[in-house]
């Protein structure tokens, strides 16, 4: 808790959401998935921060914006370790870990070069068949992609 408080002080937000423990290198993907690139209020983000738990991590702080569970879970596939911290009047009011959803629409690219999603204008769609080891199955070509081969769009 102490470290958390220190971090928040660096660029504390009065109201909004802190997305903490984003895996190294995935900050911009999270921004992209949550459509924060076009967000008009203040956003702070940091990368290569030290984390006791994960070595290096990223963090995003969004002013005056809260996320629905369905939005939060969308980032689970790129940032399964992330935590969402809701802030009101500088106080933490809620902390949630992201949950891997049952299905991912868009976001992930099918690794199969012969898949229709790599040839026609089709939005990718995967069911997550193993949440622990992150294995996804393409709704179209039915091929299974393992965690280490997952690529993002």
């Amino acid at each position, binding site marked *: 808790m102490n470290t958390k408080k220190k971090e928040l002080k660096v660029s504390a937000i009065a109201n909004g959401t802190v997305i903490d423990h984003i895996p190294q290198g995935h900050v911009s993907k999270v921004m992209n998935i949550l459509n924060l690139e076009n967000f008009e209020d203040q956003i702070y983000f940091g990368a290569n921060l030290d984390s006791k738990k994960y070595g290096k991590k990223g963090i995003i702080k969004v002013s005056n914006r809260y996320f629905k569970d369905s939005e939060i879970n969308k980032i689970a596939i790129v940032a399964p370790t992330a935590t969402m911290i809701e802030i009101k009047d500088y106080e933490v009011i809620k902390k949630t870990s992201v949950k891997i959803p049952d299905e991912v629409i868009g976001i992930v690219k099918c690794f*199969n070069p*012969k*898949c*229709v*999603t790599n*040839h*026609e*204008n*089709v939005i990718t769609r995967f069911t997550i068949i193993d949440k622990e080891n992150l294995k996804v199955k*393409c*709704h*179209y*070509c*039915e*091929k*299974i992609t393992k965690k280490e081969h997952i690529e993002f769009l």
Partner: protein
Amino acid sequence: MKNRSLISINDYSKEELLKILKIAEEFEANPRQKILSNYVIASLFFEPSTRTRLSFESAINQLGGRVIGFTDSSSSSVKKGESLRDTIETVSLYSDLIVMRHPIEGSARFASEINDTPIINAGDGANQHPTQCLLDMYSIQKTQGTLDNLDIAFVGDLKYGRTVHSLVIAMSMFKNTRFHLVSPEELKLPRAVKEFILSSGLTYEQYTDINAVIEKVDILYMTRIQAERFADPIEYEKVKNSYILENSMLENSKDNLRILHPLPRVNEINEDVDTNDKAYYFQQAQNGVFVRQALLASILGLR
């Protein structure tokens, strides 16, 4: 099953698959009922597959239906760069149902989501070919009188053969199926499919010698081993002749054994097997017509 596309064998439940097989029996007894005389079926073959196309077209023609379409994409607007979406949208306006074969995996699923016109997948690359699976099931049921308690051997290329994968998955729905998997080391059944067998509460055994299974099985499902599947041509030369079935090998096989093959064969079944009563591959191909008739009739709401 009215208006439901058939893209993957898993789209239909066990009961629905059995229902199609039941209807196929009716068409086998009477294949020339003119129930499709008011229907136009599109047959879109984005890659050539003469065998499958002729089977579908024969099924449709015998039922009095009309067929429109193309036999390979070089003679169609696809060659001019039309998207699959546009082709399907357009053809849907001209037909009641679309049969499609396409080299791209997942293309049939995508096509089935474009609008309400039902699609029958006649093969999408290495992915699915559900009507082959249905006709294999029909052939097994017809020759054995049941789909339960069978010993089934799959021989040859079990790694890349989608026909084998689909049939293994389909037969895993039935009671006490025992799978005997015969292949070279390089072409073993993929782990995911074997896991599926186990997760269905069934068992399998793996072999490299075909002679080890011939006497204990009810169905011998032969497949072709293709040279291009081997990284090392020497490996292919080593195994290519060890998976050839000859009539003499069948001497001590069970009376009810039947030999299946998705065809075309090259040399994996010697022609001297053809006159053996246990050879069933040509009737198997003919069963494809009845099963496709049953499927068309079900999807169009005529059965």
